[in-house]
């Protein structure tokens, strides 16, 4: 491992772990010691992975049927009764279909509900645009009191679960259908609201979230060979965003590329620009979905089609450096 490497560059042979699979396992593990945990799903327990909890703790599991508005409202009520509800559906339904319920019933009264939405992003794949949620970071982070978290790998998801179970108030956490390369060693340390430098660098900073963190690490390795030193930050908390770290990266490296499996409107890139505009304006390029709906296809093909691979980050990095 070179001196600039905090995390190694992911390779094909690396183990992959599903963030949703970890979610399902962690619910069971946490619930063994926490009788206040209840879980609600809307007929997708086999996909969101709440099925493990449902089997282990049937009296604390509520399948609400295909009714996401009622799903969120019922979770609010369970929180009012002192429970610690985890609520799951696909991201499109949890954050889209039930947006107003999330706003009114969860966030406005700041109730203790964790919305853990699976199948976020374009890597949903074959189901196509109707099921590919590319706007959830924007929809969720605009709501007061909401905190928005996206794991970069399964190990981080484990730590996110251990953390949020003890936190009061509403959260939106996005998991994915696709398995992600394992990046972090156990105990890497997740903190709400804290980004983490996962590769040191001086010429620019790539701020990434979710699946794009591993793409950013790959991009950084390629850029290094071209003589460009690209810092990589895993910004797993999109809200509250780590303003201090963004400002520090802007000052120290003078250019930023953001990378997210989400629309370039309103997501991580926007959140980063909100900070740089106020604290330290530097050139920024956003890698993300360019104001488009998705389509059917294999995950890897779609990530290529929509410009969400390391090559796209490399291109953006080279462009942004010209603006420095």
């Amino acid at each position, binding site marked *: 491992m070179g001196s600039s490497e905090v995390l190694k560059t992911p390779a094909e042979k690396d183990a992959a772990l599903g963030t949703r699979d970890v979610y399902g396992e962690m619910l069971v593990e946490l619930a063994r010691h926490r009788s206040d945990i209840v879980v609600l799903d809307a007929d997708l327990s086999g996909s969101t992975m709440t099925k493990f909890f449902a089997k282990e703790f049937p009296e604390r599991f509520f399948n*609400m049927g295909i009714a996401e*508005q009622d799903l969120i*409202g019922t979770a609010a009520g369970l929180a009012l*009764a*002192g429970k610690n509800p985890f609520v799951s559906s696909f991201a499109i339904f949890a954050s889209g279909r039930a947006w107003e319920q999330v706003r009114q019933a969860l966030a406005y009264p700041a109730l203790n509900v964790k919305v853990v939405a699976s199948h976020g992003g374009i890597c949903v794949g074959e189901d196509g645009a109707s099921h590919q949620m590319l706007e959830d970071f924007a929809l969720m982070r605009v709501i007061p009191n909401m905190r928005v978290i996206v794991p970069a790998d399964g190990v981080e998801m484990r730590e996110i679960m251990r953390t949020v179970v003890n936190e009061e108030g509403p959260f939106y956490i996005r998991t994915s259908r696709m398995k992600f390369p394992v990046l972090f060693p156990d105990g890497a340390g997740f903190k709400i609201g804290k980004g983490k430098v996962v590769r040191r660098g001086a010429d620019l900073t790539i701020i990434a979230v979710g699946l794009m963190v591993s793409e950013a690490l790959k991009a950084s390795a390629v850029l290094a060979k071209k003589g460009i030193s690209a810092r990589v930050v895993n910004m797993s908390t999109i809200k509250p965003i780590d303003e201090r770290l963004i400002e520090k990266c802007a000052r120290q490296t003078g250019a930023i590329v953001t990378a997210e499996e989400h629309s370039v409107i309103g997501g991580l890139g926007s959140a980063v620009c909100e900070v740089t505009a106020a604290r330290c304006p530097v050139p920024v390029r956003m890698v993300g979905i360019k104001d488009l709906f998705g389509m059917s296809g294999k995950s890897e093909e779609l990530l290529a089609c929509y410009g969400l691979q390391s090559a796209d980050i490399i291109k953006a990095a080279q462009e942004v450096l010209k603006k420095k």
Partner: protein
Amino acid sequence: MKPQSTDELRETSRQMRIEILKMLNRAASGHTGGSLSAADIIAALYFRVLRHDPKDPSWPARDRFVLSKGHAAPALYTALALSGYFDRADLATLRQVGSTLQGHPDMRKTRGADASSGSLGQGLSIANGIAMGLRLDNSDANVYVLIGDGELQEGQIWEAAMTAAHYRLGKIIAIVDKNGLQIDGEVKNVMGVEPVDEKWRAFGWDVTEIDGHDFSQIVPALEAPRSKPATDRPSMIVARTVKGKGVSFFENQAKYHGVAPSSDELARALKELGE
């Protein structure tokens, strides 16, 4: 609190109506018609039926009340004030900047409010969740929820209707304040909801119909389901009410849905209410 007799409830609801009209007039905005149609039901709940303690609003064993038709907030606020949750003088701050009494209920601001509401269609889901949580803790508390008849047009109500029946939430006691009017006019002309009773029966609920202004019917209807086991069918009380009830020139007038009484109207209304 000592449960009130039917005569005492009549006097309490008269006082509530007076306070509702005064606070709406002072705020110069708010929902007159639906607050008055719900006033008797809410009076019966807070002064006769609910197990609650104004000195301890978070008492775990208390019954809960979710005002799903949140625009009737003035009726809830007067009941809470007259019960002693907060000072009656606070009612004068309704809808003003910094007030504990928001235009629609905010449980984080108003002492004694069990849930925030205001966006129609959501209260029954919230009540169901409370009942599920209480049942997990073996509580025998009841969960009351008041819904408007126009509100029955919201799809989420019917999702929640299925949930309460599916999970056999015997501690759910819902009331429809069926005043027949909504902002744009008569419910039957805007988007018909009848037959209300048959719909709820078909969804698996025990349904009773009452006159929502007759305490000799309201009180028994609210009390009868209390002895049900927590795993019984949910209860629905369809209360026939009059929008603007108690003030002749507000009664059955859709235009007073979201309009506060002017000072002249207030004076005439208070006279009718014997103030």
